[in-house]
């Protein structure tokens, strides 16, 4: 019963999020374009499915995954837990001692990105537009890898306390260099994939991890150092998506030149 009430509540708040979007779309359609919407009934049913789907998705996450994920982030960053795995008598923890945190950050970053609905949407579209040459799974795995590396590096930054802008600026320089080299087709999609990775699933879990770390590591302030993980998670997918395109282009070239060699000989 309580599930049902909660589902209704979440449904209502999702509807509230959708209303401004629907108003803009239908307002412009009616007053500016002045043409009836093709397949209006189908589109409305589609909107209904999206709202219901998002509400169920959020309810399930709130019930099943977020509580345990948040608890886990707290427990893993707890200094006592970290000492228990490192049987040294030393009181001060070195950055290496936090290895379970980095592994968790990597694993949770990759796995939540795979399930991110907006990334699935962009991957479907990219596959359609590219005529199948960009695989849905190839793109999703490339982005997931980027988020994983980004978040793992971000937690390491919180532990060591290096300033965030050094990492971000280095990342930008890498993005610029790759932009020059990478196939032209992939560049806009790679830039987009930075923004789509961080929404419903990733942000709550990652924020809990960042805040937990910033609170327990001595010398860090939750307000200043707790932020920034999301920025890492949106920077690195650009690098890995362009890397994925570069790699597949290189493999393609190599296999073609091999073929040519065998034909010649």
């Amino acid at each position: 019963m309580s599930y049902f009430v909660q589902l209704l509540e979440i449904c209502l708040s999702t509807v509230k999020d959708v209303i401004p979007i629907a108003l803009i779309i239908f307002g412009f359609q009616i007053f500016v374009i002045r043409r009836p919407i093709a397949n209006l009934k189908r589109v409305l049913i589609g909107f209904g499915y999206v709202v219901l789907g998002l509400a169920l998705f959020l309810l399930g996450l709130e019930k099943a995954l977020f509580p345990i994920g948040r608890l886990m982030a707290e427990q893993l960053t707890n200094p006592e837990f970290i000492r228990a795995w490192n049987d040294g008598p030393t009181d001060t923890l070195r950055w290496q001692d936090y290895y379970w945190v980095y592994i968790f950050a990597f694993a949770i970053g990759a796995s939540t990105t795979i399930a991110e609905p907006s990334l699935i949407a962009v991957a479907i579209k990219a596959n359609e537009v590219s005529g199948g040459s960009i695989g849905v799974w190839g793109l999703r795995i490339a982005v997931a890898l980027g988020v994983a590396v980004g978040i793992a590096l971000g937690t390491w930054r919180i532990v060591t306390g290096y300033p965030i802008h050094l990492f971000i600026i280095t990342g930008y320089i890498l993005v610029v260099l790759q932009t020059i080299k990478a196939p032209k087709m992939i560049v806009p999609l790679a830039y987009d994939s930075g923004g789509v990775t961080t929404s419903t699933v990733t942000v709550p879990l990652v924020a809990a991890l960042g805040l937990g770390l910033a609170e327990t590591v001595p010398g860090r302030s939750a307000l200043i150092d707790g932020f920034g993980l999301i920025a890492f998670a949106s920077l690195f997918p650009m690098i890995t998506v362009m890397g994925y395109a570069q790699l597949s282009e290189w493999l393609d070239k190599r296999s073609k030149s091999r073929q040519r060699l065998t034909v010649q000989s």
Partner: protein
Amino acid sequence: MIGSLRDLAPIILVIGFFQLVVLQQPLPDFIGLVVGLFCVVLGLTFFIFGLEMGLFPIGESMAHAFARKGSLFWLLAFAFALGFGTTVAEPALIAVADEAAQVAALGGMIEDSEPSRHGYASGLRYTVAFSVGLAIVLGVFRILKGWPIQYLIIAGYILVVIMTAFAPREIIGIAYDSGGVTTSTITVPLVTALGVGLASSIEGRNPMIDGFGLIAFASLTPMIFVMAYGMVI
């Protein structure tokens, strides 16, 4: 359904492994966990179904209609409304703005009282929403003109780097994060369909090269505007 289950399998494995092997604790509330996971799988299935039925077609058909109509003003007005309207009510943004107000109060940039914090947070929210609206306008304009995306985005990064040097230290982390939180699950498919639809209905534009990139603008401009907000106030 099976596809959605496969999408979720990695999360279940990661959480299960850390709970049982690393933290060595039993899974709490097993039945609740299974019911919750069932909801997530069902929800993801519905979402993808509705995406192909409602969000993608409406985004593309509006793009085609605007291209046929040929009115630049209304197209850009629509782009701005879509960016501003979907961002201003975004729950993730509201949360980030409140946290930013706390940081600002602690850092002594504003007075530490309820009304001044509230004013700071809503000012920030409208700033970010405005910047996203502007980003979509700029992105749509780029598609119409066929400008290569990298010059605009790289120029934006250079601006971010320069501003980082001058912005108050407390605001930097939040500014960087605000780029990522502005694009919600419903906005992304709509905006993507709009861009691809526009690029495919204008002659001489390639939907792959020109159609994508709107989200990239929407995650870049908030960083610039949030830092500017921190510098001005």
